[in-house]
């Protein structure tokens, strides 16, 4: 026999007692701090920068006078700015490419079992984890015109003569190479992590199937694994490009934009003009040049990922 129990009479619950059980309420409560944070610390300064760029605001003359696109016109006609723009693209894409290549090879090496692999995996993260200010000091000494350990090694090995020792940070082309290498060095552990995550997520059955189907190492890697992990690599690349394009730390610490502006990038020049020199309106205008580029990159990447979704 089934017995039906009389419901125990309880006090009617308060209307607000289960308020947080409602998705719409709880969701709003949880997401509000993040939205406020973004609005206040990103949105407001961004709008401010937009206005600065069309004003004549400097720290010596803090007027809000509207000057239209005059700032932008002046900047575009400045050869130093055009060089900076070119440098920024070169710096960003070269260091990302180098970082990706290093990351891919690093990931392939770290996938193979060998004694001490866990230790190496931990150590390899260091360039990413070490503060760049600290790492830059080490790099600066390695590239030093007198005490460069790179030159010392090459001389000791007889590769170059002491008289031809390159002045790494003094030569415009070499200086660019240096900041690219240091930035790639900083980025490649991140690339390794991305590649490791991607490659280990490819089902073993698919790799085995490709092997039995006759694919060798290269074909497996570039026709099966790479296309399959492309979406995750693309996400990593978006992050890399966005961070590098706006970054000034390596340039600021290693070359200070020099020699003669050869390694100046947008973030660095915007900082120099807008903050150091106090010409806020021109600084804002320079920085805003990043916006369309970043916008295009992000849109292109996101569309690409959606198309390749598998």
């Amino acid at each position, binding site marked *: 026999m089934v017995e039906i129990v009389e419901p125990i009479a309880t006090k009617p619950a308060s209307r607000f007692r289960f308020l947080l059980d409602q998705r719409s309420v709880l969701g709003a409560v949880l997401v509000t701090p993040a939205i406020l944070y973004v609005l206040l610390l990103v949105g407001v300064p961004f709008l401010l920068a937009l206005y600065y760029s069309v004003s004549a605001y400097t720290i010596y003359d803090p007027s809000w006078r509207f000057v239209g696109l005059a700032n932008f016109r002046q900047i575009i006609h400045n050869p130093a700015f055009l060089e900076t723009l070119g440098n920024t693209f070169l710096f960003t894409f070269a260091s990302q490419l180098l970082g990706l290549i290093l990351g891919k090879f690093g990931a392939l090496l770290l996938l193979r079992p060998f004694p001490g692999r866990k230790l190496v995996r931990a150590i390899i993260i260091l360039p990413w984890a070490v503060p760049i200010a600290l790492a830059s000091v080490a790099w600066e000494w390695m590239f030093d015109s007198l005490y460069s350990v790179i030159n010392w090694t090459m001389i000791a090995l007889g590769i170059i003569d002491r008289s031809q020792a390159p002045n790494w940070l003094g030569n415009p082309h070499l200086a660019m190479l240096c900041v690219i290498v240091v930035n790639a060095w900083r980025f490649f552990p991140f690339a390794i992590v991305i590649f490791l995550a991607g490659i280990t997520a490819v089902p073993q059955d698919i790799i085995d199937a490709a*092997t*039995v189907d006759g694919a060798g190492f290269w074909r497996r890697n570039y026709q099966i694994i790479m296309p*399959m992990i492309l979406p995750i690599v693309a996400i990593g690349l978006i992050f890399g490009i966005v961070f590098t394009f706006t970054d000034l730390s390596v340039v600021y610490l290693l070359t200070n934009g020099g020699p003669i502006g050869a390694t100046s990038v947008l973030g660095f020049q915007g900082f120099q003009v807008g903050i150091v020199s106090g010409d806020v309106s021109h600084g804002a205008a320079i920085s805003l040049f990043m916006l369309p580029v970043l916008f295009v990159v992000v849109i292109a990447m996101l569309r690409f990922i959606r198309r390749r979704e598998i």
Partner: protein
Amino acid sequence: MAAVLTRNITKTFNDVAAVNGITLTVPDGEFMVLLGPSGCGKTTFLRIICGLERQTSGDLLIDGNVVNDMPPRARGVAMMFQSYGLYPHYTVRNNIAFPLRTQRVPRAEIEKKVAWAAQLLGIERLLERRPRQLSGGERQRVALARALVREPTALLLDEPLSNLDAKLRASARQEIKLFQQRVGTTTIYVTHDQVEAMGMGDRIAVIDHGKVRQVGTPAEIYDEPADRFVATFVGTPPMNLLSRGGAHLGFRPENFLPKDMIDDGNGGVAEFSFRVDRSEYLGSERIVYGVVEGFDAQVITAKLPPAHVAEDSIRPGEWHPFAVRNGALRYFDQDGKRTSRH
């Protein structure tokens, strides 16, 4: 000639023998099923044949050639994986074409062969789709087409039906079997499902702990099991075993019937007193669980035809006279090996 021949193949992982000396001959065109519980080494053995693993010792011959150290691509075998291993970023057409591309087959030839394989499996209309747009059954056909497109010496199948639901599995079983008979490709099929093994195999190799226990036709495996493992692994419910001083007497549940059903008075039957504990009615059969007098510790099952045995004639808790025809009795010695009699 044997399409696949193995001689005393072993494989050890960190001193644990996964494959422990398998010698097996698979003649040309045969459908050979490797049947065993999970972890018995059957999949490892299959991976050794296709070259994904290197055996620790022993020889492997495919199409008469020793291929011990040949890479998978040079062996002329194709494999279909449990999860099919389709390339998600390729269309069905490119999936099927992939094994040909790796062999650098000319483009026109590839097109012709892909069309042939697609037509063979009836998937022409799916050629431009991607794997994620296919149903489980369609994926399986694509995987089969990809395996067959380069006309392999041997086709290896690793539990290909385990990802399908029960209904689809029955039809897929039928389809693979019919298909294999039509194409005539030597096939080695790994499964832990005895229904698949019995229903599809020309011959079955029963494997346990990395060793082949018995190779034979489904009827031989079922009726004349070589040892106690085979006797109890194949058949649902498994063969009943009565222990007598270390040796065993075995009989199939369907041969264990009420005495009056089989005893025509001329002898030739072994009689048992059977106490029924529980019975399950499964529609086409009734499974009865109980104990036999003198062997209290062992649960014995009988499979009765409901049409011939009324339910109230075998009430639980009562002792009933049951019997087995002498011809249906099987004897196993202390080591579990089959003996003729004792």
